């Protein structure tokens, strides 16, 4: 365990190993249009954490209970390019994938009703595949930002037309994930991998216009005040990421 005791000790004074403030994110970089065969793609780096996301828009049969809607499928893979995941690789892939999925789905950023080709028979499916390339902590936020960047970057062909159009997105609804850990009663935004290891518990909040998804991880606890404090930071910090994201993605 990397500096476990030291991280826990200095956290009491709201200090961090890399000198960041408790509510300070690491440097975020977003590159889009990096994969040829995808309809939209992004390579996102947050500090040392790196993930690659690709979007594909493909026709298919609608789900029987949602005949008049397209589909959204989000898949995260904690790839074996990294080997320091906080839990079992497969379990971790499922958790991050599902949390990312909920953040995007519940924000209603994609108007799935506009992805119908023939009601009940043929609709478009939006597949978002996200691969972790290096894990230096906070893959939850990196997966979320990579997925959204690739989604905003995506263009697809309507049948019978050569022209490529962007997905039916409402960019005001971008729900940005913010992950916090609690160490010795101090709450830190954007944990590094050694902070994750030293943490009592973790909370991810995706905020767009409203709070769209939350996920607590780890076995420790948060108080109601803690949760409110985290939500406050998430609402205050989301514009920063949104601006960076919309600037990075040429539509």
């Amino acid at each position, binding site marked *: 365990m990397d500096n476990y005791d030291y991280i826990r000790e200095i956290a009491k004074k709201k200090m961090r190993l890399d000198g960041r403030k408790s509510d300070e994110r690491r440097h975020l970089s977003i590159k889009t249009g990096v994969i040829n065969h995808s309809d939209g793609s992004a390579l996102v780096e947050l500090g040392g954490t790196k993930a690659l996301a690709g979007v594909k828009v493909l026709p298919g049969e609608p789900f029987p209970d949602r005949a008049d809607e397209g589909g959204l499928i989000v898949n995260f893979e904690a790839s*074996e390019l*990294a080997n320091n995941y906080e839990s079992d690789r497969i379990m971790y892939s499922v958790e991050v994938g599902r949390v990312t999925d909920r953040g995007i789905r519940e924000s209603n950023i994609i108007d799935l009703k506009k992805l119908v080709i023939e009601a009940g028979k043929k609709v478009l499916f939006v*597949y978002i595949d996200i691969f972790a390339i290096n894990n230096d902590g906070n893959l939850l936020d990196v997966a979320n930002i990579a997925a959204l960047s690739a989604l905003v970057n995506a263009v697809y062909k309507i049948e019978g037309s050569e022209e490529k159009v962007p997905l039916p997105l409402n960019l005001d609804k971008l729900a940005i994930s913010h992950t916090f850990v609690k160490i010795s009663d101090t709450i830190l935004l954007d944990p590094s991998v050694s902070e994750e290891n030293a943490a009592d518990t973790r909370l991810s909040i995706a905020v767009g216009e409203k709070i769209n998804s939350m996920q607590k991880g780890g076995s420790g606890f948060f108080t109601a005040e803690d949760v409110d404090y985290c939500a406050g930071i998430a609402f205050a910090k989301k514009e920063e990421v949104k601006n960076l994201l919309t600037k990075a993605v040429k539509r």
Partner: protein
Amino acid sequence: MYEERFDKRKFDELRSIEAESGIIANAKGSARFRIGNTEAIAAVYGPQDVKPKHFEKVDRGIIMCKYDMMPFSVPDRAKPGFDRRDMEISEVITNALNRAVILEELPRSMIDVRVYVSQADAGTRCASLCAASIACADAGLPMRDLVAAVAAGKIGDSICLDLTKEEEDFHEGGATDVPIGFLPSKNEIVLLQLDGKVSREDLKKIIEIGKVGASKIYEIEKMALKRRFLNESES
């Protein structure tokens, strides 16, 4: 007849190549190798203790290599997960690396090699092997040589180097695809597969053209490693 290549290359011309090492900070060694629209990313971990324990060899190390494709790497979506094709390719890459890495110097240990294809336009096993071999060198493993791999083949009546997907699917006159991996300074072939049909004479020519191509790839691989260590000494 195939007189001019779809992408206007000469018959013995490689696509543009980019190689980079040290792209995954937490891995012992890592690399990215791109040739045309084919790109592979590799990470190496180890030498470490062998798991499961019964795979352990007392006189040498073992390589555990896994090749996989990212779902967005192909025109359709590749279903996530490890299929029979991935298994076979993992095996042939492992075989090549077994010869390249001096395993006798790493007894009782295991080296994990992970390769993911992020973009596919034919030649993914060769690109993966190149990326894996740069990553092994980047990890500081003892090696006989780097592996330089490229696909050569015959399209219609023409012997070609570095086939694209479009060329692989060429129907008129058929296409033969021969992925070849070399240890260039040792003059050894460590990966060789073929599908299609060619004469003995043609096969000789295909291997020859592949060898010339591989020697160019070899230089680019060495540059990728040198660049990394030059940068490190500067900073």
